[in-house]
């Protein structure tokens, strides 16, 4: 006899009719809810996310099926929870569809049956395995939410109800199958390896009792499934739709590139002060949040107790959007979400001040840890910068510390209130002169690299030493390079991240014009913020340059044998740890070159901090925060410095002027007597050069004579 089974076992045709009618109604309810949400998203500003469809679809399938952003080395437990629930649920759903296709299409329409034989036996096996996997995933999730309770998890009624739904559905499925096997005496029952022992235990019960129990269980399983479908669009369960949509329509630009305000001269609004000022894709993205808390794991503000918590920001926006649309936001009452969540408080609030506080908006260091961690590509930083744009350009409401910075950027093209004519003063400390692009161009010559020194390297005495060190390395390696000198100005990164898009565009356009004027092709810089702006944002202003960070160039020069390092370096000996600058590592993927440079230093023992690479921890200086007070909780740089000091390192290697300042400041406040030094990679290498350490040290000493 061929293995098979009756599909609607112990269920009469009336019940089957009711099943289909109510299922259609539940699906209708689901789509009604989805439509209402989509209508909310459509109120956002236009943005083109329909380009490169093939790439988008491929990325969506790859990331969702293989869980590449969910199962990560440092999130294995949480990742496997989702993988088990996803795989179990999706397989069971497909199983249900297979049964429906057999019963309603294949047999009645085409007269073909496939639900028998080996296929059927494999089906039974797969369904039982999937049910077990689903239960295992949900139990793991409950353990995490009730027992281990990681500090990034804050469980609401919505989270709990969803898990309860899944558990009940799986248990009902096994119960139904056990009853059917017990009643029918299925010859192939053992293939249902979970339900089979249940069936054996049930076999002695009177058949009519089993039949009644089977019918009751069938109706309740069906009712639970309908409630589950109906609940989906009004709860966290929307995420299979919204998260996949967000993954499909995500920004394909590099994460380090903020979108420009197009035609800013003609624009009537700047940034976001109302919900509908966000783009439709941003409005959709807040509904994609599944409350996993990954965005908090390496967030500097969350980990130091500040107002901004990226997950809560997104949930606040999602809740406000639900309020505005009259949608049930799936939280089952405010008290279920006591504490920070502020939704369910009416649609009439102001976005800034009523939903998102200015403290949250200004707390962000724009380090990108939240976006890098988010499994569904929610972009928190652009939303925060959009709100900063409104505060700065429309409302003139920004932290008082920023006023002199904006003024200085406008007047001098740098945030340090220093004259542009003083930009090249640091070069006077070098024995060999450094050419300026104007001189190179006048002489009709070309250089290999333009050294974009950046404002800190040009004006801040500590960072001038880094510029000196890099220049001496390039000279030592025989690289021809020049600087812009007084023609250089801020790249616009600082103004852009602080929300002054107009000023940022002016500065960027000026720089691009200058670089294009000199026909610059290759740029080297020691500042990751300049690096990111030139690499990722200048194409928006017509600037396409090959830009390398100095760590990459030094690494190449060492590998090519163009730099000879002294085995008995006085600068770096002992343990060295390396701090990943966010705008170099996380935003631009430069992780290996700086480590290779440290590894190439003689007599150095390299140690990693616990948080490194993509999971590094911000120094607290990005997004203009180096110029603002660090308020609330503990200071971010002190948190990072403690981590560095705990490695026992003698030197903290840096690769960014802002990081350097923040780390040095942090060390002096955490342990004023500490002998731990913060040195840039260029300083470490220059100090170890066989040919020029003496000259370099002399040059550094001479710096004090040329300070502006």
């Amino acid at each position, binding site marked *: 006899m061929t293995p098979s089974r009756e599909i609607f076992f112990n269920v009469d045709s009336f019940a089957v009719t009711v099943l289909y009618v109510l299922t259609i109604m539940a699906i209708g309810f689901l789509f009604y809810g989805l439509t209402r949400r989509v209508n909310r998203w459509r109120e956002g500003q236009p943005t083109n996310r329909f380009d490169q469809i093939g790439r988008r679809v491929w990325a969506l399938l790859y990331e969702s099926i293989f869980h590449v952003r969910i199962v990560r080395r440092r999130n294995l437990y949480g990742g496997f929870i989702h993988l088990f629930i996803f795989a179990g649920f999706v397989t069971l759903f497909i199983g249900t569809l297979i049964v429906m296709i057999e019963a309603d299409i294949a047999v009645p329409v085409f007269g073909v049956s496939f639900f028998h034989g080996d296929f059927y036996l494999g089906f039974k096996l797969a369904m039982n395995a999937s049910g077990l996997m689903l239960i295992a995933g949900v139990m793991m999730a409950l353990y995490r939410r009730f027992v281990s309770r990681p500090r990034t998890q804050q469980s609401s*009624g919505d989270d709990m109800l969803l898990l309860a739904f899944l558990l009940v559905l799986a248990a009902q499925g096994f119960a139904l199958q056990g*009853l059917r096997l017990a009643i029918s005496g299925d010859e192939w029952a053992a293939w249902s390896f979970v339900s089979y022992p249940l069936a054996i235990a049930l076999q002695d019960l009177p058949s009519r009792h089993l039949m009644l129990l089977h019918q009751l269980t069938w109706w*309740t399983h069906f009712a639970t499934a309908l409630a589950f479908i109906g609940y989906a669009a009004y709860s966290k369960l929307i995420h299979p739709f919204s998260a996949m949509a967000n993954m499909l329509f995500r920004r394909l630009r590099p994460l380090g590139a903020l979108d420009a305000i197009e035609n800013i001269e003609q624009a009537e609004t700047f940034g976001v002060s109302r919900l509908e000022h966000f783009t439709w894709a941003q409005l959709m993205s807040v509904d994609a949040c599944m409350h996993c808390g990954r965005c908090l794991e390496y967030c500097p503000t969350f980990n130091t107790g500040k107002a901004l918590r990226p997950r809560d920001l997104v949930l606040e926006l999602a809740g406000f959007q639900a309020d505005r649309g009259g949608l049930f936001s799936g939280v089952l009452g405010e008290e279920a979400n006591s504490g920070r969540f502020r939704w369910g408080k009416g649609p009439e609030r102001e976005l800034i001040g009523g939903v998102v506080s200015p403290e949250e908006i200004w707390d962000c260091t724009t380090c990108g840890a939240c976006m890098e961690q988010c499994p569904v590509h929610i972009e928190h930083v652009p939303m925060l910068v959009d709100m900063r744009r409104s505060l700065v350009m429309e409302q003139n409401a920004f932290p008082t510390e920023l006023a002199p910075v904006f003024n200085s950027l406008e007047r001098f093209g740098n945030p340090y209130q220093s004259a542009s004519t003083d930009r090249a003063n640091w070069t006077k400390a070098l024995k060999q002169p450094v050419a300026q692009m104007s001189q190179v161009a006048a002489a009709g010559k070309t250089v290999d690299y333009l050294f974009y020194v950046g404002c800190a390297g040009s004006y801040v005495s500590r960072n001038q030493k880094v510029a000196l060190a890099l220049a001496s390395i390039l000279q030592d390696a025989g690289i021809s390079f020049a600087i812009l000198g007084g023609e250089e100005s801020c790249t616009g990164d600082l103004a852009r991240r602080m929300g002054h898009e107009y000023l940022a565009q002016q500065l960027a356009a000026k720089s691009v014009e200058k670089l294009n004027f000199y026909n610059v092709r290759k740029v080297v810089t020691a500042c990751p913020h300049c690096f990111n702006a030139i690499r990722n944002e200048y194409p928006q202003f017509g600037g396409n340059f090959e830009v390398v960070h100095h760590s990459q160039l030094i690494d190449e020069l060492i590998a090519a044998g163009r730099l000879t390092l002294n085995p008995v370096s006085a600068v770096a000996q002992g343990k060295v740890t390396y701090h990943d600058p966010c705008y170099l590592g996380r935003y631009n993927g430069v992780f290996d070159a700086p480590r290779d440079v440290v590894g190439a230093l003689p007599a150095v023992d390299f140690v990693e901090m616990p948080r490194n690479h993509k999971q590094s921890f911000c120094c607290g200086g990005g997004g203009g925060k180096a110029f603002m007070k660090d308020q609330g909780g503990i200071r971010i740089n002190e948190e990072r410095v403690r981590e560095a000091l705990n490695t026992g390192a003698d030197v903290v290697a840096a690769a960014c002027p802002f990081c350097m300042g923040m780390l040095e400041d942090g060390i002096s406040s955490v342990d004023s007597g500490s002998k731990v030094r913060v040195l840039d990679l260029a300083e470490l290498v220059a100090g170890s050069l066989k040919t020029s350490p003496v000259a370099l040290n002399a040059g550094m000493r001479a710096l004090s004579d040329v300070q502006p």
Partner: protein
Amino acid sequence: MKTHISRAISCAAVVLLVAPVLGVMTASLVGGASQLLHPGTGRSSAFLITGCLVAASLGAVTLMAFVVGMRAILGKAFVPPSEEPA
């Protein structure tokens, strides 16, 4: 008042939804135990013990889902993180 009524209806619905599956698991547990205590059906003890264990596990899982679901409906599901950052 409206909230209380909707919660009461939701609670009653949850009881109705989980009662049959709990009934099945209880019946399996009792049926399996009874066969183990009164041998003679010819069924393998190993399968019966497994049946009892599966029934107990699925019953416990359902009960857990019931408690979690009721807490959610009653607005008592909020679980704070184990520790707050500084």
